[in-house]
């Protein structure tokens, strides 16, 4: 009788634990995408277009994103004329980050940062750089 009670007790715990695990797994469902999002730790990324004076986008332009006196990241615009650089850390003040652009046969005309529409770290700091043909 005693061993029967013990078996029942062990079986009870095992089944209870199994049910609890199954129910919580089903309730949570599954994630869909954005698993690689590190914006919480990295702070907002830096994104923008490089355009010419007619408003057309400029592919393969050199874009430098610099954190005041500390680090500079150089990238190039893609076929759509966009660049994207990861954030420098959530403690970084975006006002300390400067963007500049260049391309052979052009000079930088202006750099305009768009006002931030949200404090959502997933939304990048958007800066548009305009190049003028030489």
């Amino acid at each position: 009788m005693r061993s029967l009670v013990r078996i029942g007790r062990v079986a009870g715990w095992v089944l209870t634990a199994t049910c609890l695990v199954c129910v919580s797994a089903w309730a949570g469902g599954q994630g869909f995408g954005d698993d690689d999002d590190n914006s919480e730790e990295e702070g907002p990324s830096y994104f923008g277009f490089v355009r010419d004076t007619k408003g057309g986008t400029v592919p393969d332009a050199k874009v430098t994103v610099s954190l005041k006196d500390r680090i500079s990241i150089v990238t190039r615009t893609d076929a759509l004329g966009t660049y994207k650089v990861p954030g420098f850390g959530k403690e970084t003040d975006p006002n300390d980050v400067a963007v500049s652009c260049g391309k052979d046969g052009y000079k930088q005309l202006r750099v305009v940062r768009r006002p931030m529409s949200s404090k959502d770290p997933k939304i990048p700091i958007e800066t548009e750089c305009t190049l003028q043909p030489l």
Partner: protein
Amino acid sequence: MRKLMFPLVAVGLIIVLGLWSMRAGAQSQFGDANAEPAPFNPQMAAMMSMLIQPRHAKLGLAGQAENWPLAQYMLKELKQGFAITARSVPRWKGLPVPDLFDAAVSQPLTTLEYGIKLKYRQQFDEGFAKLTEGCNACHATTEHSFIVIKVPDASAFPNQSFQPKP
């Protein structure tokens, strides 16, 4: 009797949890049949599959057949598809969708518009190739370069003729 209490409680708990999990299981991963209908809120992939990709294909087929009224109509539909998508999903993975669409397709759409108005096949083909390039450039920018759009070489619409009406 006291020794039997724990197994009895455990069995009771198992039954309750079992019924609960069966209820959760019966609800299906796709939702609850008895829930209030939710507003339809398609995301980017659905918008692309519903409003953009088929219209891009139909526009291409209409132009290839030199069915200019249909091409004109599909161009308008495609533009509306982009506008609706940009309004419904203004930001995707943080990126500004209206600006991406503008950079990717505005210029080719204008080229296409003139090609269709002039009934000029070569300009249509150039515009359509640029439009398709723009789609793929945008996919690359949004880290979806594995979705490759091409000029249609066959119709996926067996119930529609793309030939001009005689």
